[in-house]
């Protein structure tokens, strides 16, 4: 694998994807890991899920230097989501020999290892779970609705 080669004079907000696949963003002080810039409108990678979740919870503005919900907390919710998915539908992990994947902020380019048609329920789950946090802007009903949609969509039609 070739060595990392960061741009010499970066501007704030500039992205750099290392040969390992990890994407970095220059925040004005240094290169920070964990930013994922999806320009593909896809929902197939971990970073795509994080982006879509941020869109649904109105958390796309990081001008202050950070998001309202850290990437770490979203990935944790995603990891909890795949565990819950395995509990309800173990057959969805047959293809990976029932090894439930675990994701991390350092590998936002990682594939989800869940068949495409079950990615939307995961997004519903993560949105529901991050909004279940006891914050003043959160709405319990909305969080509950997303979590319920998750279980409905993997257990029943519609």
């Amino acid at each position, binding site marked *: 694998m070739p060595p990392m080669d960061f741009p010499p004079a970066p501007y704030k907000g500039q992205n750099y994807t290392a040969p390992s696949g990890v994407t970095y963003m220059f925040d004005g002080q240094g290169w920070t890991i964990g930013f994922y810039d999806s320009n593909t409108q896809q929902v197939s990678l971990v970073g795509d899920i994080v982006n879509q979740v941020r869109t649904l919870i109105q958390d796309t503005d990081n001008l202050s230097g950070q998001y309202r919900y850290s990437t770490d907390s979203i990935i944790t919710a995603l990891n909890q989501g795949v565990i819950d998915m395995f509990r*309800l*539908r173990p*057959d969805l992990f047959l293809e990976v020999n029932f090894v439930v994947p675990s994701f991390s902020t350092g590998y936002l380019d990682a594939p989800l290892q869940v068949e495409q*048609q*079950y990615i939307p329920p995961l997004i519903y789950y993560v949105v529901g779970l991050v909004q279940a946090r006891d914050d003043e802007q959160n709405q319990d009903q909305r969080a509950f609705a997303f979590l319920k949609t998750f279980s409905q969509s993997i*257990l029943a039609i519609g």
Partner: protein
Amino acid sequence: MPTVPSPPWDDIYKEVKVAMPGLTDAVFQQVSYQVWKDFADKTNLWTEEVPIAVTPNVLTYVFTCVNGQPNRLMLLYDPAQKDPDRKWVQGNISMMVPGTIMISYSPSTATTWNAVVAKIPVVRSSQNYPDIDTPSNWIVDKYRDCLVFGIMGRLQNLPAKTYSNPKLALWNRQNYIAERSKARADGQKANVYGGQRWMYPQDFATTGRKGWA
């Protein structure tokens, strides 16, 4: 990413996939393997003719099939015999362990007999579907509806899935068993219409003995 398999499984995949919302490829592959194994076991349609080199003083012969594994010894005959009807070369031949033929007495000279063996699948292809040999694809094509019934019945019987449906599972299962019985009868009659029409009188039968029921 869902992937349509190669023939002969492609049409079955399409038929089942459109009827089963939320079905993953991995589960379809697993269930299609189970159904094909059951179908091959119950119908004896998937066969192979294996030459067995017999020699004096040897009673046990181990053999393997090109695809699949031996499940049932249908016949062991001597191709050198002039009789057009293939007959058992001797009595009391067995295959207690699939793949190992035991004869009751050895031939006086070395020769080659042919074993007709009904098979069941043993491995999956590179695409994870039952590894069927191309000349036998006709079985899957001819009994496509039967296999679709069987696969759907098993899938709908699984609990807590988006496609769970015990009522339809029962209906599909019944259809599968009926079609499987027809396939078995077809095989026994070598797909000849009207072949061996005579059967024992059924008036006093306590159980059905018709080949197709």
